[in-house]
């Protein structure tokens, strides 16, 4: 056990500062997307979701992937900090996933003509969210901290393995989801202003992720310390 209350407090404080910056940047992203980026000719204003939805999806994938990595590290080193990080990252991933499945239908209705479709990528995003909902159900059902960390790590690694399946399906199955249109060389490129805003979105959501996870990590460590004291 190398958990310390001081480190937890530091993580929360730094996380709070980074989150504040992230939220300011997010506000800036909205201004950039709405005011300084041209509207798309066919999709109109609906296309503005493009600057939030894919970045949130990317950050969600990052969160779940890092939960898996931290889970592997936990099993190898049995350091409770990795467990705390895995839990924090998974929870932030759930929130980001919530943003993805909320913004998706808002864009889907005007552009696809339907709120929801059982498209491959959409389906597997929902599955991933359910996998990690199960991850938290499992955590909640185990009292012993060591056993909880161990079992959660196993579930986290299994969950991470579903992520490549997710990406694979987009290309394997018929999908109505846009395949990557941004980074390609043989077809017309995205206008520079749109590309700039789009890439800014990814940067902003990365900062959001870091800020959220640091705070949640600190809270998780505090809870673990309380648990150890009560035991």
């Amino acid at each position: 056990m190398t958990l310390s209350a001081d480190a937890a407090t530091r993580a929360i404080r730094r996380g709070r500062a980074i989150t504040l910056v992230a939220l300011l940047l997010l506000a800036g992203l909205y201004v950039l997307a709405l005011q300084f980026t041209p509207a798309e000719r066919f999709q109109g204003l609906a296309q503005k979701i493009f600057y939030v939805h894919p970045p949130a999806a990317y950050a969600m994938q990052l969160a779940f992937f890092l939960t898996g990595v931290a889970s592997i590290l936990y099993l190898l080193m049995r350091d409770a900090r990795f467990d705390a990080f895995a839990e924090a990252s998974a929870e932030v991933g759930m929130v980001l996933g919530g943003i993805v499945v909320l913004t998706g239908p808002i864009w889907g209705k005007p552009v696809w003509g339907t709120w929801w479709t059982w498209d491959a990528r959409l389906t597997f995003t929902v599955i991933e969210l359910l996998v990690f909902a199960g991850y938290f159900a499992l955590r909640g059902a185990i009292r012993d901290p060591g056993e909880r960390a161990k079992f959660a790590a196993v579930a986290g690694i299994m969950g991470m393995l579903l992520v490549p399946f997710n990406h694979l399906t987009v290309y394997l199955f018929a999908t109505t989801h846009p395949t990557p249109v941004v980074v390609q060389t043989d077809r017309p490129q995205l206008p520079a202003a749109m590309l700039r805003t789009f890439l800014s979105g990814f940067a902003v959501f990365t900062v959001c992720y870091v800020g959220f996870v640091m705070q949640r990590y600190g809270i998780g460590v505090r809870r673990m310390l309380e648990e150890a004291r009560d035991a």
Partner: protein
Amino acid sequence: MTLVRAAIAIALKDLRIEARNRTALLTAVTFAVLVQLVFLFAREPGAVRLGVLAPSVLWITLALSGLVVLNRGFLLEREHAALEAILLAPVPRSALFWGKWLANTALVAGVLAIAFPVWILFFNVVPQPALLGVLGLAVLAAVGFTAAGTLFAAMTARTRYAELLLPVLLLPFLIPPLFAGAQASVRLLAGRPFGELAGWLRILAAYDVVFLMLAALLFPTVVDE
């Protein structure tokens, strides 16, 4: 070869217990038949033809009765601390995984042996050689999901909510094999050329290999004290 022998010994132990009281098999088979009935009664006969519904019902039956079988495997070991006794045996921990997996797969196959003919009967499926292929697909899918299921069941059996947690954890992992299996069997029954199945078969095979290896790798961590 101790691994293989130990695994077979554990599997035979489980199957012997099952042969003596037949609780799990009887329950799972009854459950599988009931699931099919639920679908028949939840259907508007004028609107949904049996043939359209049939492949879906087969795969849902397989998934749900698989869960019933998997739940049993480690709950059995909870009584009289039987798991600790097995862990004391001087055999690799992974032997326990392979043994349990073998027994679970055999039990799922046992359920299929009865539920499959019942499905053909209930859903007026035309007897045809392609049905053997569908049965093969079901076994191929079962091989993979019992691997993930054996791993998860070993964990959930040690919690207070085993019966509730296993489905929640395992069902998302059933979706890829279920999806591929259902797609392939619909094409098989419609007499489509093999080329249309190949992609789905590859997914099923990849899933089996990946999750068998991963579950075998992670299992020792789950049972170690």
